[in-house]
């Protein structure tokens, strides 16, 4: 899979959304004006690494290390693409 965005750029969570842990639901959620998306565990792991410093490769590397596995690239890219499409995250231009 080839990214549709410039994957050399770091990814950051959108300042117009909020990602938080919900104790009563026992899951992470994304909050935005008058709406909420409930996240599964893998999606939350990926989105929490969109910290304005890591790139796609950096996120893949981090999660493959954490879960002691390989071959996560395409799954992670798929989620990143849909998160970009939904405006939950954005690429950060350097400089």
């Amino acid at each position, binding site marked *: 899979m080839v990214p549709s965005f410039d994957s050399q750029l770091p990814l950051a969570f959108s300042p117009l959304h909020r990602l938080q842990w919900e104790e*009563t639901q026992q899951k992470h*959620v994304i*909050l*935005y*004006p*008058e*709406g*909420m998306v409930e996240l599964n565990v893998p999606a939350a792991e990926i989105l929490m690494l969109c910290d304005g410093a890591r790139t796609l490769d950096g996120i893949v590397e981090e999660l493959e290390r954490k879960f002691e596995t390989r071959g996560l690239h395409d799954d992670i890219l798929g989620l990143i693409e849909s998160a970009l*499409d939904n*405006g939950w995250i954005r690429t950060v231009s350097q400089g």
Partner: protein
Amino acid sequence: MAGSAPYPKGNPRWLLAELTYACPLQCPYCSNPIDYTSHNGELSTEEWKRVFSEARAMGAVQLGLSGGEPLTRPDLEELVQHARELGYYSNLISSGYGLTEERILNLKAAGLDHIQISIQAPEKTLNNYLAGTDSYERKKAVAHLIKQHGYPMVLCVVIHRQNIHLMREILEMAIELGADYLELANTQYYGWAHLNRAQLMPTREQFETAEAIAQDYKLRLKGRMKIYYVVPDFYEDRPKACMNGWGTTFLTIAPDGLALPCHEARILPGLNCPNVREVSVRDIWEHSEAFNRFRHFDWMREPCRSCPEKVKDFGGCRCQAYLLTGDMNATDPVCSLSPQRDKVHQAIAEARQASESAEVQPLIFRNSRNSKVLGASSQA
């Protein structure tokens, strides 16, 4: 017995705090009750804080700070700060009129997440006429300030026959103001809108033309602006799943502390809604008669009772059924299967007649004087 599919169970996720009925605007489609002037005694700062805490403990996470005009509460910043400390995502639902840069900054510091403002029309004369207040320039200035201070901005425009012909101009205005979200809310006929229905309801042709324009912009603006299009359900064949199902998701607290399964429910006769001054939010949600009244399928009659779609739309809106038929247990007449569907056809015909008539009926504006006169007559 009800059918085999269970009624959804859940705790409140959405708390709508109607902080006050006071408002400097007079919109003739306001959803507040006609007799709002007779419901006095707003909850205090401490009472609101307790309500926020109790609902948050049950899992409510979206908080709407609404009214009336919530900016008329001098303790708004303190309430926002409490909400932020509890972990709510707080939405200020305002007319924008009366919002100053100082307050925008203070609300930001208190932790407010988002501001929604409403504009009545994309041009000054009509906006000010509909709002009953000279507010157009101020609202546009406020919209710019909201963006300037880094809030996500939702622009809400209520759509009806007096402004539906300006759909393209409305969309262009939203682009110019840099709205992140545009809510095109076709009028729902409750409260003052019900009163003014014949003057507000668009014809089907007007509605279809406007919708096509909105859908076209929606595609073109993808990724730049999200457009929420609230459909006018009088032109649908099936009713909306009102409130995502009674007592499943939404909790509204009226300015005087009345707890409502939806913000219109105070009109339903004999519902016996509890008050947060007397009962805890958990008790209200779990045990009150009002919140359990339609939280199942057993109240339904035919054609709802045996309908496979009841698990999707829950029989539609109880308030709409009541307003159109006088019976809150009736099938929502918006449904083409309703034996009282003619009530909807009749409303549409009345509106068309009014639109073609040379004699223009005046709009009844939402203000204290009209509320006192009309509220008294509706109770008599």
